[in-house]
């Protein structure tokens, strides 16, 4: 019962995300979506997953979205379209699409065989029977013993991401202190250009 109620809320908020009139409304709908998803996790007694969902997804990733949307689209200046830095993508896109379709077909086949009958009774039970399952401690016991390698690889990926952020977001113009000599030279050139224009006319 609870599951179906949440499922409807999830789908409704997901539809709202893509159909919202303003990008900020999309963010709010997505926030509602994430919080509802956390409730689903709690109903499946996946406590730690629920909290992480809120902390990481709504607490961090969505804030980034909000920054980008609220700050860019509140602006009145039109943005210059820069050169397209991405290579042409049809082939990789097609590949990704095929993989996704295969994954969907496979998981759907599995889902209708197993998952649905499992999810419904669990949500009706509403935890209780499996107090330890999904708790922070159980999660830790798994993550730091049998899943150790993926965990350490995550560290590596995160490190690459950190470096990527700086390389992408911060070119020298924004990150290094201003080069006063260079700035002065640029201003001088601009002044001279204006003077020349004046002489020409």
């Amino acid at each position, binding site marked *: 019962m609870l599951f179906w109620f949440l499922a409807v809320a999830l789908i409704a908020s997901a539809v709202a995300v893509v159909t919202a009139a303003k990008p*900020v*409304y999309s963010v*709010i709908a997505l926030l509602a979506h994430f919080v509802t998803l956390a409730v689903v996790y709690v109903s499946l007694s996946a406590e730690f997953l629920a909290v992480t969902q809120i*902390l990481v997804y709504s*607490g961090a990733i969505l804030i980034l979205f*909000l*920054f980008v949307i*609220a*700050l860019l689209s*509140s602006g009145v200046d039109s943005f210059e379209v820069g050169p397209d830095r991405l290579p042409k993508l049809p082939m990789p896109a097609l590949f990704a699409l095929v993989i996704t379709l295969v994954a969907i077909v496979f998981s759907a086949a599995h889902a209708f065989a197993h998952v649905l009958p499992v999810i419904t009774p669990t949500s009706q039970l509403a935890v209780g029977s499996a107090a330890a399952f999904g708790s922070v401690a159980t999660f830790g016991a798994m993550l730091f013993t049998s899943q150790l390698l993926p965990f350490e690889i995550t560290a590596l990926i995160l490190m690459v991401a950190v470096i990527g952020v700086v390389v992408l977001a911060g070119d020298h113009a924004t990150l290094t202190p201003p080069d006063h000599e260079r700035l002065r030279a640029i201003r001088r050139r601009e002044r001279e250009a204006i003077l020349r224009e004046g002489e020409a006319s």
Partner: protein
Amino acid sequence: MNDVLGVLPWWVVVVVKSAIVLAVVITTFAYSMLFERKVMAWMQLRPGPNRTGPWGMLQPAADAVKMMFKEDLTPLTADRFVYRLAPFLSLLAAMGAFAIIPFSEDGQGLWSVGDVNAGILFIFACTSIGIYGISLAGWASGSKFPLLGSVRATAQMISYELAMTMSVVGVLVLAGTTSLAGIVHAQHKVWYVVPQFLGFVIYIITAVAETNRAPFDLVEAETELVGGFHTEYSGLRFGLFFIAEYLNMITVACIATLLFFGGWGPLFGLVAVPGLVWFLLKAAGFLFLYIWLRTTLPRFRYDRLMAFGWKVLLPLATLNLVATAAYIALAP
């Protein structure tokens, strides 16, 4: 008492409990505001509010009435829906934290609405939702200073949230649980402020920044940003942000008490004094600390604030937690 509890359906009991907690928390908010004004006045050799009732005790009621009857303005440039949603979100997130805070304990169990296993993580989740109230308010106002203020606030809050979450990990390592009650029980020998002193200091600094209080109140730096993110808000809607800010302060005071000062555990072995009294005394001490800091320290500069968070507090918090882990791993 127990007969009454037994007869009522369990959910009625929970609703009543929730209402009591909310009522107490809102009252605490009202009087911590008066407390702040009084203490600040005394520190600055002024009388403070003293016209409404003895010692100005009715001042909160007067303020509430004034707020409620004030005209509620919405600028035409504002996005009406988000403009109204933002204070609601702020307040709800601030109230949410009190769902799991245990105030005391007796033979029957904990004095809390629900003690969840995720404990402190639940509090952090509420905090991270609360950020939306501020960032959406600034965006929805359709005005320059609120937007600047809210962007600043958001950047400040996420930066300090990081160091804050890291600073309490040391406590989690020692206690071996995230449940608030479990952490209090783990402190029956020694309060964690002793082995986790660095973590405690980092927690207090980051928590002050997280609640946007002086000396980290750049969000509402009057000299630069007028009122910050709530410049355009008036009447009770402004009041909601105000309530949310104080509720967050009270949450921080409670969490500091629970994580580092043994919660409702007695001092000097004075078990005759009820646990609730100890808890409230300790929490009130932290609220006083807030006011003390506000009257003592000048405001930070924004670049220094960000650098302090990322370059000092974050590495220190990490160091603290690695050192704590090393102690646990290598100690017999």
